[in-house]
């Protein structure tokens, strides 16, 4: 009883954290105390002051402001990538599961090849091909992940198309798009949401890692991975630079992971859990 309560409180806490980050990202220009691009070389690596609550970086820019503005690329681009992934996966999965036959065959073979490839390598390949740019990183993420969703959705679609109420709808002549949206989507929705929540954490990690390597968001734009990349260069002289962006990223990813775990537990009350 206590555990259940605690768990739901935990998931609410995660939701609140994610919501706070989102709001801060949306209203970044109003919340951030300073301009994230404004350099002040006289005042670099300053410690915590009222003007710069988290100090300044190697160019004298306000770390807190950069952190808040950094939510936009970090969180919003990940959400964008997830939206793209799910859309592509849905379309492919439903096409394969609903029409079967050669459509299914072709899509599933492609999915097999995609899944037998390590995802990090594939992302690098796509970025290498398209050029170093954050847009390409997003495309690469979608390209790498959609196959998982397509396979899962296809399985569910096949399971549910065999069920009575879908057959019934078909026999009374509702059109296929109607059948799909009306009956199938609710069936996969919960599973999809859990998977997507867990994967959002993964995507944030991935995009920031690529930015850290210099392949994603480029230099002056504030992004947490890119900020840590800059912090790397001064790790000997000013190790404090890596604290703020690192902590921010851990909190955000942890919130998504925990939320996903909680939702999965709520759906699947087995004894042995992760």
């Amino acid at each position, binding site marked *: *009883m206590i*555990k*259940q309560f605690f768990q739901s409180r935990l998931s609410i806490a995660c939701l609140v954290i994610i919501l706070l980050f989102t709001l801060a990202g949306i209203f970044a220009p109003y919340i951030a105390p300073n301009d994230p691009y404004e350099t002040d070389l006289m005042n670099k690596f300053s410690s915590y002051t009222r003007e710069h609550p988290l100090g300044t970086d190697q160019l004298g820019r306000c770390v807190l402001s950069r952190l808040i503005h950094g939510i936009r690329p970090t969180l919003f681009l990940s959400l964008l990538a997830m939206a793209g992934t799910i859309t592509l996966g849905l379309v492919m999965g439903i096409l394969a599961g609903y029409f079967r036959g050669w459509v299914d065959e072709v899509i599933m073979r492609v999915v097999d090849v995609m899944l037998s490839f390590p995802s990090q390598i594939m992302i690098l390949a796509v970025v290498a091909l398209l050029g170093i740019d954050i847009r390409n990183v997003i495309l690469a993420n979608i390209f790498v992940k959609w196959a998982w969703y397509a396979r899962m959705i296809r399985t569910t679609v096949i399971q549910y198309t065999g069920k009575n109420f879908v057959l019934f709808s078909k026999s009374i002549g509702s059109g296929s798009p109607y059948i799909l949206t009306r009956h199938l989507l609710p069936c996969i929705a919960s599973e999809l949401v859990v998977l997507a929540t867990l994967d959002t954490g993964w995507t944030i990690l991935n995009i920031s890692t690529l930015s850290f390597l210099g392949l994603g968001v480029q230099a002056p734009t504030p992004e947490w991975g890119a900020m840590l990349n800059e912090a790397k260069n001064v790790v000997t002289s000013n190790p404090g630079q890596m604290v703020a962006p690192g902590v921010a990223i851990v909190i955000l990813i942890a919130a998504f992971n925990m939320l996903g775990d909680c939702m999965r537990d709520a759906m699947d*009350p087995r004894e042995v859990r992760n």
Partner: protein
Amino acid sequence: MTSDNRVLQVENLTVRYKNRKRITTLVDDLSFHVDRGECLGILGESGSGKSMSSKAIMGILPPRQFDVTGSARFHTGSEEPTDLLRIKKEERRAVRGRKITMILQNPMACFDPLFPMGTQMAETVRENTETPVKEIRGLCQQVLKDMQIRSPEEVLLKYPHQLSGGMLQRIMIGLALVTKPDLIIADEPTTAIDSITQFEIIGELLKIKEQGTAMIFISHDLGVVNRMANRVIVMHRAKSLQQGTLAEIIQNPGDEYTRQLVNSRLTLVDQFNSFLREPGVSA
């Protein structure tokens, strides 16, 4: 009844299952006793808590999930009786597998799938008897032979999934007998076996009983219980409804459930017996 012959005295045994928020009572205030050379039958429908009570006595329910209260005093030799529910870990191991053995219900799932039968039998023998290492193999083969298993050498090399449920059950029975225990708990030991082998196994168990080993015999089968048990407990929904000899219970079923049980089973038994009496069928 004198308590000199007493082997096991169970009092107020209660088993509760703790799941996240709910607590379910699986065995409710069960009391009974077993004497030397006596067989106690436990009758009851599926899910009535027969296996749970015996597992609780053996102490194999994980304490994290199960809450076991009451007492189960086990009398061994002339020493003070030990309470199996409060016994220390090391002492329990000296009892479990040596002085009390048990035959579990679903033989197919009871052996480790990764080891051949010979290894698992040998480790049991090594753990519970003082058999010299060289003789263990021979003893295992003897156990199989006693249980009417053909080509024991081959069976020892086989993995559990390669043997039938009946064979595994007979091996379990053999292992339960090999340490010459004071008490055998047999949880539906004849369910996975065809009726001819069943007949032989029952004969084997009866012999053991005559040698003075006490036995708790759990079954749905009124006919088998009739042959084996001196006294019977009827369990229903975690509680014991009635205790006494089978004849007493059949003649005077104290409550509705027992009456139903007896009636439905008696018709079956009657049919069965009349079927057996027909010429040419008797084994």
